[in-house]
């Protein structure tokens, strides 16, 4: 089969054992094909010669350290972790507030940092991801609005594949903040963090990131909002835009 194109040959070469055996048989009576295959063998040999040494190096500590950390504490520790976490956030925020400069960037940094910290703390929660479940949405909305001090809307993100899990109140440097958690069918979680932001200039949607968690934030009225999730930028942006539209009544 001298006319087979590279793609078809490569499908065999990188296919099942059967495919490879078939290719070998084809090459037996076909010197031109043997040449083509040998050329690819040389390419692969060159890639191995070039890059295999990296795989033989000792692993750097920064890659092994995260694996040495206990990643799955026993269940019974979760309630304690849940109690301690808001305290830690409060302390961290106290420090963060010192850097509060009043300009858009300084405020944003603290808002997003708080939102990301809250996200990272609660999305891993299996037992108590929220204080009030979505089944109690009316109560949750009233309660969060009362604590944050403004009538809040709980955005409906089902069009983006996210259903509400529920919400909780968190301490923020400027008062009580609301955290709403959403989840998609794959268990991917998204959080919306809403905190008082008095006297901050309003902003359009801004995208920022830190580590593997990403956030979109904005300030509207006296509220700072941030949508945080480990999602592709487009998807995060779409969900954030929908939340923004519903929260600002656009």
């Amino acid at each position: 089969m001298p006319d087979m194109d590279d793609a078809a040959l490569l499908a065999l070469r990188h296919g099942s054992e059967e495919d490879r055996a078939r290719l070998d048989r084809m090459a037996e009576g076909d010197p031109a094909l043997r040449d083509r295959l040998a050329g690819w063998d040389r390419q692969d040999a060159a890639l191995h010669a070039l890059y295999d040494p990296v795989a033989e190096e000792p692993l750097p500590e920064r890659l092994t350290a995260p694996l040495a950390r206990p990643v799955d504490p026993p269940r019974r520790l979760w309630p304690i972790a849940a109690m301690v976490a808001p305290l830690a956030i409060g302390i961290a925020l106290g420090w963060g507030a010192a850097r509060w400069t009043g300009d858009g960037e300084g405020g944003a940094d603290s808002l997003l940092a708080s939102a990301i910290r809250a996200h990272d703390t609660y999305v891993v929660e299996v037992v108590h991801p929220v204080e009030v479940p979505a089944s109690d949405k009316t109560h949750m909305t009233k309660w969060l609005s009362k604590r944050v001090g403004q009538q809040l809307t709980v955005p409906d993100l089902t069009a983006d594949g996210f259903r509400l899990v529920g919400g909780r109140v968190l301490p923020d440097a400027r008062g009580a903040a609301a955290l709403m958690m959403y989840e998609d069918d794959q268990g991917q979680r998204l959080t919306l963090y809403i905190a008082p932001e008095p006297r901050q200039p309003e902003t359009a949607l801004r995208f920022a990131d830190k580590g593997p968690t990403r956030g979109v934030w904005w300030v509207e009225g006296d509220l700072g909002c941030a949508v945080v999730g480990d999602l592709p930028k487009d998807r995060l942006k779409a969900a954030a835009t929908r939340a923004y539209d519903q929260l600002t009544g656009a």
Partner: protein
Amino acid sequence: MTFPDEIEACLPSLRRYAFALLRNRDAADDLVQDTVERALSRRHLWRGDGPLRAWLFRILLNRFRDDRRRDRASLAVVGTMIEPPVSGGQDDHLDLREVHEAMGRLPPDQRAALLLVGLEGMSLGEAARILEVPEGTLASRLGRARAELRAMTGRAGPRGERKATET
């Protein structure tokens, strides 16, 4: 083996792959570190169906694509280049330095695909699932990558002619 142990067992090939893909030591280890952190934080999403290695490569490549989308400039930096061993010019070996340079000129999606099968030894099916493209698409992409590589490493025509136009 525990989950972290299984990840650790995959680290050598993830590092090799990340380096071959990014061609910069620090950027490669940043990418692998990111992959590890992400895998640990999302372990509840790993359902244990299929090899963990494939899941890790998928995370790494998603991250790689996100990084490129977000910040193309930062990945275009000229990295700490390794000095690849130079082969002795026998005809049955390719010039390694030339291959390394040529790999750098391949479009990233072609480089990513070729390295999965050519370096990591994955089957077309496995690589297609990781890259989330149909096998036929991947086979064509591999064909283009190998043809490009062949052209740039002086095996398909007058040696050096093409190189001169690209540098």
